[in-house]
């Protein structure tokens, strides 16, 4: 009798929590699905009825995607995003890795001073304008450097990487040193091959940050030729008249709403495609950071 009531209790409990999980799942998926449905809605349909969440796949029209993908502004913005993401992440890693490695050496004279040097701006942010003045003074406005350099070392990322390096067995590094390797060689031949997980985690964080970047681009990139996809998307979404940013063919079969939705979908597509494959690196990195707080 007792086991019976208990199992009913369990079944009810499982029913409850799994319903909750499924409701949340649907709550996250509906907006994403709606973006997609809207992006493939043909003009003649939207004039006649409301869209809802379902559109017969036979009616899907990829006209908006066709127009966007062949549009020079869109291609240029995508290229800019790629340049900023790849170039920016390269700069991030080139600056962060050696710095974190040097700080991970417990015998480095002045180590405490350098760590403090890194912590002060982490704790106290001078704010928007003082940084803006620096970027302006250095003549970086309207260059890719303006969006890449201000965050070239993410202090938190650097500290997470440092503590990873500190956890590597000292014996391996010391053996290489005794063989006459200098520190650059130790880093390259001993430490980095052992650090792939943290390199991927931190690298991916930087890359996502660059792909999503829009505020620094608004601040520093006035030249439309340099603006990334996020800025083009923002312009498309905010514009009363889309033609200011991408000439939209009014005679096409895609409505403006499909055009907007398609640009949203295309901008998030790289993340949707890449993220599930690298999810574990993101979560690992977060746990590492969380535990080290």
């Amino acid at each position, binding site marked *: 009798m007792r086991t019976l009531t208990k199992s009913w209790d369990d079944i009810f409990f499982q029913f409850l929590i799994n319903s909750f999980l499924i409701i949340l799942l649907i709550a996250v998926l509906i907006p994403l699905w709606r973006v997609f449905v809207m992006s493939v809605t043909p003009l003649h349909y939207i004039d006649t009825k409301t869209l809802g969440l379902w559109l017969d796949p036979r009616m899907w029209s990829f006209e908006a995607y066709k127009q966007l993908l062949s549009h020079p502004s869109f291609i240029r913005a995508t290229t800019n995003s790629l340049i900023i993401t790849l170039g920016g992440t390269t700069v991030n890693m080139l600056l962060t890795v050696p710095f974190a490695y040097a700080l991970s050496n417990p015998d480095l004279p002045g180590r405490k001073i350098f760590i403090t040097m890194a912590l002060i701006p982490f704790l106290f942010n001078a704010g928007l304008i003082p940084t803006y003045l*620096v970027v302006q003074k250095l003549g970086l406005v309207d260059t890719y450097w303006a969006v890449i350099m201000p965050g070239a070392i993410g202090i938190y990322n650097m500290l997470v990487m440092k503590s990873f390096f500190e956890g590597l067995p000292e014996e391996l590094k010391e053996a290489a040193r005794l063989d006459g390797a200098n520190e650059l060689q130790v880093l390259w031949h001993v430490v980095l091959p052992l650090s792939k997980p943290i390199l991927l985690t931190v690298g991916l964080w930087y890359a996502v940050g660059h792909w999503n970047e829009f505020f620094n681009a608004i601040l520093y990139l006035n030249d439309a030729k340099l603006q990334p996809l996020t800025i083009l998307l923002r312009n498309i979404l905010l514009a009363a008249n889309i033609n200011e940013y991408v000439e939209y063919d009014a005679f096409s079969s895609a409505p403006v709403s499909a055009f907007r939705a398609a640009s949203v979908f295309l901008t998030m597509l790289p993340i949707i495609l890449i993220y599930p494959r690298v999810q574990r690196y993101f979560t690992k990195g977060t746990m590492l950071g969380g535990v080290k707080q």
Partner: protein
Amino acid sequence: MRRIFSGGGAMIGISKLKNLIGVQVSKNQRLGYLGRMLYKYRWLYFMMLPGIAYFILFRYLPLWNAQIAFKDFKPLLGVWDSPFAGFKHFNTFFNSFYFTQLIGNTVIISLLKLVLGMPMAIILALCLYETVFKRLAGFVQTITYLPHFLSWVIMFGILLVMLSPSEGLVNEAIKASGGEPIAFLYSPQWFRAVVVGSDIWKDTGWGTILYLAALMAIDPTLFEAAAVDGASRMQRIWHISLPGILGTIVVVTLLRLGNILDAGFTQIFMLYSLPVYSVGDILDTWVYRQGILEFQFSLATAVGLFKGGIGLVLVLAANRLTKQFAGSGIYS
């Protein structure tokens, strides 16, 4: 931890040994202690040079520039030569009508996000942990983590698709049931709900990670023992799971409170507009408008500095409390 320590000790031992043997001693003695150290670690210092240059240029030069908060900054005169103004800009801000509104909006939006968002993340984490359908749990995790990686520009697009009066899904439903469409993003009554709601939609999944890690760390024999004693599911959650993640909850709360003046700049910047300034304008957006759009560099810097100062105090206090808390053994 101990292993690393002994490794470090061994290393010191070896370098001392080298000195004893006399490797390079004659050459290095002439340089003095400092020179010897600089020489010995020259590669590490060399590797740090780009980073040091970065810190000076992009992290410390801004701190230097922050002095314009106490000056009447004239771009032509430069930071140093601009005339001194004392606390004029701070007073302007403190006495302005904006002061209470900005602080109020910032704190209210931050707190709403914390108070409403956190229980969602905790409940989701508990559900993910308790469900017997582990593949479903994995799928839910992947899908609910995803929005965390979307830029607020994309989020704005998604919100338009859902909430726009003309083509948003929610308004389609309202119209279908005979109501009047609502301009959620432009309505002072709705704006905060949109801000908090979209933040919860975006980050609830991601917020579960730390709680899940804490749940995984609970000794499973505790649950078994409780089951043997006849504890119900709810009792087990209440008496074992929740106490098990209490440490994490406290730490996350403290850290979030430490950053209470960061109400989500890029989000608000992307979502707000003139009609909702009264409920949505926060310190950061105001600083942006005053500084970048109105060229009030000194005033904007003063407000930024004020925010940075309060933020520093709060973060340090939160850190201290966290350490005390962790010291009691819950966070180990």
